[in-house]
C-alpha cells in the first residue's frame, strides 16, 4: 500500500479506481495497488481463477490500461516511426503487437495497435504508460493528431476455451468469425460502442472488450451471470508467465531492448521508414547481444521471484525478472536475463533464493502450450 493513503500530503496521488471497483468489493476481492490503481489481485483464490481460465472462462477488469488514438492523413506514416513492428503489414480491422523504443532502443512500453484505417489508429498501452506513452507519441508524431483516450474506456478481458461462445452470444454483430488479433465495433450485452478484439494475455482463446465506462458494470454483471469466473491480477500474472508473455516493468524496461527481451519477431529493422531506436538496435544486432531473456525452471527446491540474482559458479551474472510456481506444471518457472553464452536451452545455472544457490536450467518457452 503506498504512503498516499497514510499521510496527509495532498501532493501524493491517491490510487485510482475503475468503474468495476464496487463490483470487485461486492464479490469479496482482495484489492492491491498496481501502477497507481486499486485493483483486484484475487477473489476466491489465484489457483482456482487460473484453472477457470485454462479450463472454462474467466474475466478480468483491465480498465486500468490506457488508450491513445492517432488520427489524420499522416497517422500510419507517423506511427511507423514510433513502433518497432510494421503497420503496413497490418490490415484494416487487424491488430498488431509492438513496442515503443527510445533512441537507445530501450523499451518505453509494449502496446497493441488496432488499425481502423491508415488514417485512424487506436492504441492500447499499459497502465504505467497512460501519460508516459501519450506524451512520447504526441512529442514524436509528425503530421498526425495524437489524443489521450484513456478515460473514455473501461476494458474487460474474457479468456478461456469457453470465451468465444460466451462473448459471441452477447455481441451484435457477431464476432465468432473474428480471427486472432482482429477486432470489430459491436454492441455487447446491450452496451453500444464497444470494441471487441480477439486478443489476450493468457495464452487461451478469448477477447478483450473496450467498453464505455458507463456500460462496464452491465457487461461485467452479464458475464458473471452467464457463468464466467472473475479473475484478479494474481491469476493474470501466473497465466501470462506460463506462456512467457512479457510484463512491462518486470521483464523489460527502458534499460533493455526488445532484442534482448526476445521480441525480435516484432522488431522490423528493415522497415523503410525506420523507427525511433532502429539505429541503436541495428548496431546491437550487428555487435551481437550480450544478454538475453530466457525461460528457466528451478530444478532445485524453491520459487524464483523478480529481482533474485542469477549465479554461475557463484558469481552474479544476471537477474530473474519474473517467477512463480506454475499452477499447470506444478513446477517453479521464471524468466531471467542471462549472458548470451548461458542462454542455450539446457544450460544450467543457479538462482539465489534467500541467500542460497538453487539449481536452474534454461528451458524452451512457452512453458505451457499456447492455444493462441
Amino acid at each position, binding site marked *: 500500500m503506498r504512503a498516499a493513503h497514510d499521510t496527509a500530503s495532498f501532493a501524493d496521488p491517491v490510487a485510482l479506481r475503475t468503474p468495476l471497483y464496487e463490483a470487485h468489493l461486492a464479490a469479496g476481492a482482495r484489492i492491491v495497488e498496481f501502477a497507481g490503481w486499486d485493483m483486484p489481485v484475487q477473489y476466491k483464490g489465484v489457483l482456482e481463477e487460473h484453472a477457470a481460465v485454462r479450463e472454462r472462462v474467466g474475466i478480468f477488469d483491465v480498465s486500468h490500461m490506457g488508450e491513445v488514438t492517432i488520427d489524420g492523413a499522416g497517422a500510419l506514416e507517423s506511427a511507423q516511426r514510433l513502433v518497432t513492428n510494421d503497420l503496413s503489414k497490418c490490415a484494416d480491422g487487424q491488430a498488431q503487437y509492438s513496442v515503443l523504443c527510445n533512441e537507445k532502443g530501450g523499451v518505453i512500453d509494449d502496446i497493441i495497435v488496432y488499425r481502423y484505417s491508415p488514417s485512424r489508429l487506436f492504441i492500447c498501452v499499459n497502465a504505467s504508460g497512460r501519460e508516459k506513452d501519450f506524451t512520447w507519441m504526441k512529442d514524436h508524431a509528425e503530421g498526425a493528431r495524437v489524443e489521450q483516450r484513456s478515460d473514455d474506456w473501461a476494458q474487460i478481458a474474457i479468456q478461456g476455451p469457453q470465451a468465444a461462445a460466451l462473448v459471441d452470444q452477447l455481441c451484435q454483430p457477431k464476432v465468432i468469425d473474428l480471427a486472432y488479433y482482429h477486432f470489430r465495433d459491436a454492441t455487447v450485452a446491450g452496451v453500444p460502442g464497444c470494441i471487441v478484439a480477439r486478443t489476450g494475455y493468457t495464452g487461451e482463446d478469448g477477447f478483450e472488450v473496450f467498453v464505455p465506462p458507463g456500460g462496464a458494470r452491465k457487461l461485467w454483471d452479464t458475464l458473471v451471470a452467464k457463468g464466467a469466473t472473475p479473475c484478479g491480477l494474481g491469476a493474470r500474472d501466473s497465466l501470462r508467465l506460463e506462456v512467457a508473455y512479457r510484463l512491462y516493468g518486470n521483464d523489460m524496461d527502458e534499460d533493455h531492448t526488445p532484442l534482448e527481451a526476445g521480441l525480435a519477431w516484432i522488431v522490423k529493422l528493415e522497415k523503410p521508414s525506420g523507427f525511433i531506436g532502429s539505429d541503436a538496435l541495428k548496431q546491437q544486432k550487428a555487435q551481437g547481444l550480450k544478454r538475453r531473456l530466457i525461460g528457466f525452471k528451478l530444478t532445485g527446491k524453491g*520459487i524464483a521471484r523478480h529481482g533474485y540474482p542469477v549465479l554461475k559458479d557463484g558469481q552474479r551474472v544476471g537477474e530473474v525478472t519474473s517467477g512463480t510456481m506454475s499452477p499447470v506444471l506444478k513446477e517453479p518457472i521464471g524468466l531471467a536475463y542471462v549472458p548470451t553464452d548461458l542462454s542455450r536451452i539446457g544450460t544450467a545455472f543457479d538462482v539465489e533464493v534467500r541467500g542460497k544457490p538453487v539449481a536452474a536450467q534454461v528451458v524452451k518457452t512457452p512453458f505451457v502450450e499456447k492455444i493462441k
Partner: protein
Amino acid sequence: MRGNTATIGITAFAKDQLGDVVYLELPEVGATVTRGQPFGVVESTKAVSELFAPVSGKVTKINKSLVDAPEGINDDPHEKGWMIEIEMSSPADANELLSAKQYEELLAAEH
C-alpha cells in the same frame, strides 16, 4: 501443546492473508528454533513469508507430506496443515501465547 511438545502451524487467518500456498520450506529434524526467529518459509502464488517460531526448542518432527504437497495448508491449516513439532526448551514460553479463542477476539477487534 502436550507437555513439553508444541505443534506449530499457521492459522486460518494467516493462510487467508497469504493466498494459495504453493511452497513450504521447513527445518530439519534436530534443528534448533528460537522464539521470535524465522524457522521456515511459506510461499503463496504471489508472496513469500517467513514462519516465526512462537516458542524455542528442538525440532522433533516435520510434516513431510505437507512439504511435498503444501496445498494441504490451504484446505486445513489447523489440523492436517501442521508443520513442525518442537520439544520446548522453556515451556513457560507457551504461557504467553494466545488461545484460538483469544486470537479470534484479537482479530475481531482489529478488523
